[in-house]
């Protein structure tokens, strides 16, 4: 049995076609995804906006303007921290995020000069009431409206606009209160009120981990790669069955029981599938940077469960009588490709289709092994609880039991009517 295990391991690892489909193909596809979708993630990130700050009299009179700009530039974190301690931080902006790259100028004309030279995207100027306004250059407006831009200028400008709007509203409120009640700053209620208005918009995280719009495609890719691994068991079963190959005849007349040969082959196939999928997972996780919710050990468990299921599936396909190995291998590829469509691998349309099936026909989604393998990683990423992950594992193990039972029924014959 041990020698059968080793030989199956060797034949699997030396099968160039299987290695291509199980290692090279997922890596190539993941690389392609990375190239196509990587820019999309970049476009969603905040990048510093280059602005000129007009430091005229109005600016000097605008209370807190300098503090705001300094905080947004990420240049004086001490100041930001001090204000945070008093409950009036700079609009909940993460001190690690730099929203502005500032250049100080003395007048509006100097600021416009910088804009015309392309050295700044816009300028900030305070009016007589202390309100700060952002003026953008034509180039910056064009770039922000350009959907193909690489950097997320539109996201940064949107965030900046929001911050400035909050500053202006808060500043106006404070002035209004001070005008009616000059002693108000001495009370805690005043500062609490300001803080409450500052926190009117707050970003909260509902999921275990920061979501990534692209992660599902990579998970769907894992689902497809997993199903392709069926080929190992198809090869193992057909080369052990007398009615399927000459090799099978030779092995069947040997005194080592067929069950032992098949179990050894199954274990070797499982190990190889696991190894190949782990390579793909490692590439996706560490090269493409796709997270698995910080639950890497559980992701390894997911690979183990998924590869067990695919080996069981391969056993069933391999055991189908009267079909050649080539036909069965073709069937496995067709199954992997078609089921991957319903798990969302082929782009936005497929993803919508996958979601539609999950909503309208959950049973169909539940019996799609590619979808369930995708769900394994998805549940790790998006759910705080392990319950969805465990439930998906249970579904996959149930599928495996069904596949193995069907395979065993077909393989249980010890003698054949025909060879």
């Amino acid at each position, binding site marked *: 049995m041990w*020698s*059968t295990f080793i*030989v199956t391991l*060797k*034949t699997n690892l*030396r*099968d160039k076609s299987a290695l291509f489909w199980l290692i090279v193909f997922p890596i190539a596809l993941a690389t392609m995804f990375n190239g196509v979708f990587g820019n999309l993630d970049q476009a969603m990130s905040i990048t510093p906006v280059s602005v000129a700050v007009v430091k005229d009299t109005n600016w000097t009179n605008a209370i807190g303007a300098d503090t705001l700009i300094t905080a947004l530039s990420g240049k004086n974190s001490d100041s930001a921290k001090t204000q945070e301690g008093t409950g009036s931080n700079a609009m909940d902006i993460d001190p690690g995020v730099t929203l502005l790259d500032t250049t100080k100028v003395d007048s509006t004309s100097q600021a416009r000069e910088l804009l015309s030279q392309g050295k700044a995207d816009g300028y900030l100027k305070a009016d007589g009431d202390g309100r700060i306004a952002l003026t953008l250059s034509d180039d910056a407006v064009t770039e922000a409206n350009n959907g193909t831009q690489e950097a997320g200028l539109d996201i940064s400008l949107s965030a900046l606009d929001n911050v400035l709007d909050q500053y202006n509203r808060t500043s106006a409120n404070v002035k209004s209160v001070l005008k009616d009640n000059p002693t108000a700053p001495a009370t805690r209620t005043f500062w609490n009120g300001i803080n409450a208005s500052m926190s009117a918009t707050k970003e909260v995280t509902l999921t275990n981990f920061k979501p990534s719009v692209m992660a599902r495609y990579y998970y769907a890719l894992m689902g497809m790669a997993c199903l392709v691994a069926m080929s190992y068991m198809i090869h193992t079963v057909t*080369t052990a069955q*007398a009615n399927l*190959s*000459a*090799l099978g*005849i*030779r*092995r*069947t*007349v*040997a*005194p*080592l*029981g067929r069950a032992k040969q098949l179990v050894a082959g199954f274990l070797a196939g499982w190990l190889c599938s696991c190894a190949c999928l782990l390579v793909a997972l490692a590439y996706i996780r560490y090269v493409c940077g796709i997270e698995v919710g910080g639950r890497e050990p559980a992701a390894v468990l997911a690979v183990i469960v998924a590869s067990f299921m695919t080996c069981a599936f391969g056993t069933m396909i391999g055991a189908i009588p009267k079909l050649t190995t080539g036909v069965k291998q073709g069937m496995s590829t067709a199954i992997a490709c078609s089921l991957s469509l319903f798990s969302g691998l082929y782009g936005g349309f497929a993803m919508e289709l996958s979601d539609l099936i999950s909503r309208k026909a959950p049973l169909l989604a539940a019996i799609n092994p590619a979808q369930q393998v995708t769900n394994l990683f998805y549940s790790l990423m998006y759910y705080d609880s392990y319950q969805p992950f465990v439930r998906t594992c249970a579904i996959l193990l149930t599928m495996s039991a069904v596949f193995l039972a069907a395979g065993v029924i077909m393989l249980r014959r*010890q*003698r*054949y*009517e*025909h*060879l």
Partner: protein
Amino acid sequence: MASETNANAQTIQAAQTTVPAVHVSQLVKRYGDMVALDYFDLDVQQGEIFGLLGPNGSGKTTAINCILALLTYDKGTIRVFGEPMTPTSYALKRRIGIVPQNVAVFNELTVTENIDYFCSLYVPKKADRAPLVEEAIEFAGLQDFRKFRPGKLSGGLLRRLNIACGIAHKPDLIFFDEPTVAVDPQSRNAILEGIQKLNKAGATVIYTSHYMEEVEQICDRILIMDHGRHLALGTADELKAMIDTGERITIETLDLTDETLAAVRALAFVIEASYDGRELDVRCRRGEHNLVDLIGVLRTSGANIGHLTSRPPSLNDVFLELTGKALRD
């Protein structure tokens, strides 16, 4: 050669007192309405090389697959070394080797790895196996190709690897199913010599082939079967004696007339006569004066006689007479 055959015959006679290597009695196997084996009988004595001959579709492979417990059958008894053969007769299986017609090896493994693996199915301990593998490599003449994978081997070497994988565990009973198909004469010779060596070392061999000269060369006894039935059994000489066909006479003559050819055909011992304008080919029944009588007819007609050959009946003649000349699948 004759003394060798006698010695072998004596050995077989001695073996006949022990249990047969294979005993098949009244075996019936049907594929739907088609009868593949029709109350087929077979007894192979220990220590002999037994030839199983028959046209395509005659039931040879079906019989072997039934003996190996690969196929179900409808009626009959099969015993190997006196024991009933079943799919779980592992003790019996340990004594059997098989060389299938199609090369059955792993393309991903080297020559040594293939032989070692198939031997490991019979001999689990690596230490016990290593000398057997080495011996099989030498037996098959594959010493220079140990690290080669099957894809890099020629047709003849592949056949030899196929044989090495089947015999490495030193079986007592070996089935060779057309082992020389598509190999050159040198490889064929090497394979046949190898089979004889295995037999001398004590193995019983059941050999199927379509090459009559091979069967005649190495087999002690031959069974000819057709339509799933046992047609004839004996040594090559015994089989030749069973048929009506005698010698085949070929005479070179350039001036044979239609009347003379008709006269030849009219001779009582002539089964068939043909003339291609250069050579007269006559298949005769058994008789002591066939050649003299034939030459007499030609001389009477005035035909000039050139080169003349007379060949005794071959196994091929026996085969064709017993199984007919109709084409098979």
